[in-house]
C-alpha cells in the first residue's frame, strides 16, 4: 500500500503565477501510533525543519519530535506582574495621590485624593479585588495572544492549504511535514525516506510564485485608497477650524439632561416686559406678610429725628424697653444664655471684652479691633435703644446679628448687658437682703 503511494500525487496547485515553488514534503500516516513512531525516526535522521500535523494533540509526540517546553508561562507570569503593578499604580494615583504634589501633570491625567467616610487615602486592602482582576486579565490576554504570536498565527497563505489531502488534518488524518529549507532535504531521498517510515502517501507541498504583476497592488485599489484617505482628512480639518475659531453660537448639546427647560431663569432677559427683565419686582407699596414693622421702639430701638446741633436728620434712641418685653428675672436669664452663645466669644462672659476669640486675635495681630468693655462709662451712658441697634446692625468689625437673633432675644441681651454693667463695681448694700445674707455666709 505504501509502495504504491510513494509516487507523489500531482499537486493541484498552480492556477496562475510565474511558476511553482517546492515548499516541502507531506507524508500521511495511518494513526497516532504510526505518526509517533515515524516522528521519532525523522528526528533520529537529523532533520530540523519539520513538524507533525494532527487533528488533536497526540500524547507523547512532543518527546518524539523533541519539542522543548514552551516559555509561554514565564512570559505570562511577567505580564501578570505587570497587571498587578498597573492596578496598584492606577488605584494609588487616581484615589490617593495629591494633585498639588505633582504640578507638572496635565489636568486630565491628574490624580485626586478621595476622602471616603474618613478612611485613609491609601487603603490597599480595599484595592485588592481590582489588583487581582487586572493581574488575571493581563495574564490571560498574554496567554491567549502570546500563544497565537508564538505559533506565528494568523497565517492564511500557508502553502499547506494548497493540498487537497491536507484538509483532513483537522478531521482524522495524521501528517509529517518536512520543509525544503531543511539542510538535509533532498527531494527524492526524503521522499523515499518518508515512504519507508510507513506513510500511506507522500506528496509535495508547492506554492505558486507570484508574477511581478500579481505582487503589485491593483491600480483601482490605490486610487480608492488615496480618495478615502483624503476624505478621512475632512473631519480633522473641521475640528482644526473649530478649534482655531471663536463662535457665538452655543455648542452642540447632544444629551439634553434637562439642561435647557421651557422657563425663564432669574437673571435672564425677557422680550415681553419694558425693562427686558424676566425677573419681576413686587408692585410698588406691596409688603410681604410679616414684613410690616411699624413699631420703631420694638423693632429698631430708634426713630428718625433731627440732630439739634447740625439740624440734620439723625436717629433718636429710645431710653426705655418696649412694652412687648417683660423685663423680669427670667427675661434676663434668657438674655444671659443668648449673650453667652453669641457675644461672649469676643466680649467675654463678664462683658469685659476679653473673650477667647478676642485674645487669640490680638495674639495673631493683623488689624483686629479690641472688643469693647461693655461696662465702661461710655456704654453705661448709652440708651437701651442704641445697644439694641448695635446688636442688630453691628459696628466697626462687629458683624450685624439682626438676622440671627430675634427681636425679643436681642432685647433680652440688652437687659443682660445692663445687668452686667450694674454688677461691675456694685456695692453689697445694693443687693437684696436675701442675696446679701447668702454672700455673707460664704
Amino acid at each position: 500500500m505504501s509502495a504504491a503511494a510513494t509516487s507523489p500525487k500531482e499537486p493541484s496547485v498552480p492556477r496562475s503565477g510565474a511558476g511553482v515553488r517546492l515548499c516541502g514534503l507531506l507524508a500521511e500516516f495511518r494513526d497516532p501510533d504510526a505518526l509517533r513512531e515515524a516522528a521519532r525516526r525523522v528526528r533520529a535522521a537529523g532533520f530540523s525543519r519539520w513538524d507533525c500535523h494532527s487533528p488533536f494533540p497526540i500524547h507523547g509526540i512532543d518527546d518524539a519530535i523533541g519539542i522543548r517546553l514552551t516559555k509561554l508561562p514565564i512570559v505570562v507570569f511577567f505580564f501578570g506582574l505587570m497587571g498587578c503593578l498597573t492596578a496598584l499604580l492606577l488605584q494609588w494615583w487616581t484615589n490617593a495621590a495629591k494633585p498639588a504634589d505633582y504640578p507638572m501633570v496635565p489636568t486630565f491625567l491628574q490624580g485626586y485624593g478621595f476622602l471616603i467616610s474618613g478612611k485613609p487615602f491609601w487603603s490597599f486592602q480595599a484595592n485588592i479585588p481590582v489588583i487581582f482582576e487586572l493581574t488575571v486579565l493581563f495574564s490571560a490576554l498574554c496567554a491567549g495572544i502570546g500563544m497565537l504570536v508564538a505559533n506565528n498565527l494568523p497565517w492564511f497563505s500557508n502553502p499547506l492549504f494548497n493540498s487537497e489531502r491536507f484538509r483532513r488534518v483537522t478531521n482524522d488524518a495524521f501528517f509529517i511535514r518536512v520543509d525544503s529549507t531543511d539542510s538535509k532535504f533532498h527531494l527524492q531521498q526524503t521522499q523515499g525516506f518518508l515512504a519507508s517510515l510507513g506513510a500511506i502517501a507522500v506528496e509535495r507541498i508547492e506554492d505558486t510564485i507570484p508574477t511581478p504583476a500579481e505582487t503589485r497592488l491593483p491600480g483601482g485599489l490605490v486610487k480608492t485608497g488615496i480618495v478615502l484617505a483624503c476624505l478621512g482628512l475632512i473631519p480633522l480639518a473641521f475640528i482644526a477650524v473649530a478649534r482655531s475659531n471663536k463662535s457665538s453660537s452655543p455648542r452642540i448639546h447632544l444629551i439634553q439632561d434637562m439642561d435647557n427647560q421651557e422657563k425663564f431663569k432669574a437673571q435672564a432677559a425677557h422680550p415681553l416686559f419694558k425693562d427686558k427683565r424676566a425677573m419681576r419686582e413686587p408692585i410698588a407699596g406691596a409688603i410681604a406678610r410679616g414684613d410690616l414693622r411699624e413699631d420703631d421702639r420694638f423693632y429698631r430701638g430708634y426713630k428718625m429725628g433731627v440732630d439739634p446741633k447740625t439740624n440734620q436728620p439723625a436717629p433718636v434712641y429710645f431710653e426705655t424697653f418696649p412694652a412687648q418685653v417683660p423685663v423680669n428675672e427670667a427675661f434676663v436669664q434668657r438674655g444671659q444664655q443668648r449673650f453667652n452663645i453669641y457675644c461672649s466669644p469676643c466680649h467675654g462672659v463678664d462683658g469685659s471684652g476679653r473673650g477667647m476669640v478676642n485674645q487669640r486675635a490680638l495674639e495673631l495681630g493683623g488689624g483686629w479691633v479690641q472688643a469693647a468693655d461693655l461696662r465702661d462709662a461710655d456704654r453705661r451712658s448709652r440708651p437701651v435703644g442704641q445697644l439694641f441697634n448695635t446688636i442688630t446692625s453691628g459696628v466697626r468689625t462687629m458683624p450685624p446679628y439682626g438676622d440671627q437673633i430675634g427681636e425679643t432675644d436681642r432685647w433680652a441681651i440688652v437687659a443682660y448687658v445692663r445687668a452686667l454693667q450694674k454688677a461691675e463695681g456694685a456695692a453689697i448694700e445694693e443687693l437684696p437682703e436675701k442675696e446679701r445674707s447668702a454672700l455673707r455666709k460664704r
Partner: protein
Amino acid sequence: MDISGRVNGEFDNTWDDPQKRSPLVPEHYKFGDVTEQVCGVTEAWRPPKAWYVAFAISVSLLGLLGAMIVYLFFTGVGVWNLNNPVGWGFDITNFVVWVGIGHAGTLISAILFLFRQKWRTAINRFAEAMTIFAVICALLFPGIHVGRVWLAYWMGPLPNQMAMWPNFRSPLLWDVFAVGTYFTVSALFWYCGMIPDIATLRDRAKGPIRRFAYGVLSLGWTGAARHWHRFERAYLVLAALSTPLVLSVHSVVSFDFATSVLPGWHTTIFPPYFVAGAIFGGFAMVLTLAIPARQLWGLKEIITARHLENMCKIILATGSMVGYAYGMEFFIAWYSGNPYESFTFLARAKGPFAWAYWTMISCNVLAPQLFWFRACRRSIPIMFFVAMCVNVGMWFERFVIIVTSLSSDYLPANWGGYRPSWVEICTLLGSIGLFMTLFLLFIRFLPVIAMAEIKTVMPAAHGTGAHAFDYNPDEPKEHPQVSEGRQ
C-alpha cells in the same frame, strides 16, 4: 448490551465496572465519526423545525428587550417600580442571576479541566458559550440601570478634564472590573479553544462564504505539533487563571451586598454561598440547554447519559450546599443575638415575600433531592423538570435576598413594598430572548462540541485496538502498543 455498548438501540454508558471505566463515546467510533456528527449540526442545509420555532420566539423576545430599553432610555428609570426603600429590584436580581449562570460554564471548562475530569469535553464548548451569552445579559442590567446611561463610561478610569476618577474602594467598582475581566477572559478562553474546531469547519466548508468566514476565524490553524504544544500550555494557563477568577467574580458580586450594613446582607457566608449557588444554577442551565440540543441534533452518543448523570450529581451536591447556606443563615441570625438579623430572616419566611421564599426552598433544596435516586438521574423528563425548578428557584433566591432585606430594614418607618412594573417583567423576558438568540445562532454556525478534545479521550487516540479506555495516560501501561509508543 451489544458490542457498541447499545441497550435497546440507545448508547448506555451509565454502568460502573470497577475493572474498566465506561467509555465517554461508543468504542467503535472513529475520529471521522465525531467530526461528521458535530459538523453535521452546522453543515445541515436546514436546521430542525424546532430551531426555527425557538429562534422566532427568541428574536421576538429580543425585540421586546430592545423596545423596553428604548422606552427606559427615553422616559427614565421611573418606568421601573423602584423607589425608596427598594432601589434594587428586577434589574440587580437579573444581573446576579445571569452572572451566576455563567459560572457553570467556567467551572466545566476550567475547574473540571484542572481536575482532569475528561467527561467535560462533550459539554465544555456550549457551556462556555452559555457563559459568554449569560455574561452579556448580565452586563446589560447594570449598564441600563444607572439612570443616565450616556454617562455609563464614568464607571471606567478614563482621563478627563475634571480629574474625576472612579472610587476604587467601592464594591460596585470592583464589580465593573470583575465582570469585565470575566467576560474578556471567558471569551478568550472560548475562542482559543474553538480555533482547531473552526479549522475543521473551514476544511470541510463547501461554499465560498463559509470557507472565507471559517478561514478567517481559524487563523490558519494547521494542527502542527508545536502549535498543539503551545496551545495546550496556553489552555492550561487559561484554565488555571479562570479558576480563581470565577471564584472571585461571584465573591465580588456578593460584596455588593455583604459590605453594606443591611440585615440579611451583611454576612461573611455570602462569597462561598454565592459561588455555590452560581454553579448550582449554572449547571441547571447547562442541562436545560443540553437536553433539547442532544435530542434535536442527534448528539446522544457524544453528550451521553453518563454526562447528564454527572451533571445531576453536581446539581445535587451544590444544591445541598445552597440548602446548608440557607439553614446557616437562619442559625447565625439566631446565634448572633442581633434582633434585626432575626427579624429579617423571620420576615423572609413569614413576611410579605414568604411565597417567594418558599418557592426558592422547594425549587432549590427539595427538588434536587430527587437525584439521590439513580432512576431520577437517568430519566430525561425528571432531569429536565428539576433543572427548570432550579432555574426558577435560583432567580427567586436573588430576588428574596435583594428585595426582602431592602424592603424592611432597621426602622419600621423606612419599610416599603415592591411590585415589579410590566416594563421590568418584559425586560427580564427580553433578556432570556437575547440569551437564546445568541445561543441558537451559536448552535447553527459554530462547532457546538469540542471535537479535537473529544478525539483525545477516544480509545483510538491512545493506540489502535486499545479497548481499555486510557484514563491515566501518565501511568505506565502494560498494553504493548501504547507502551511502545511512549519514550
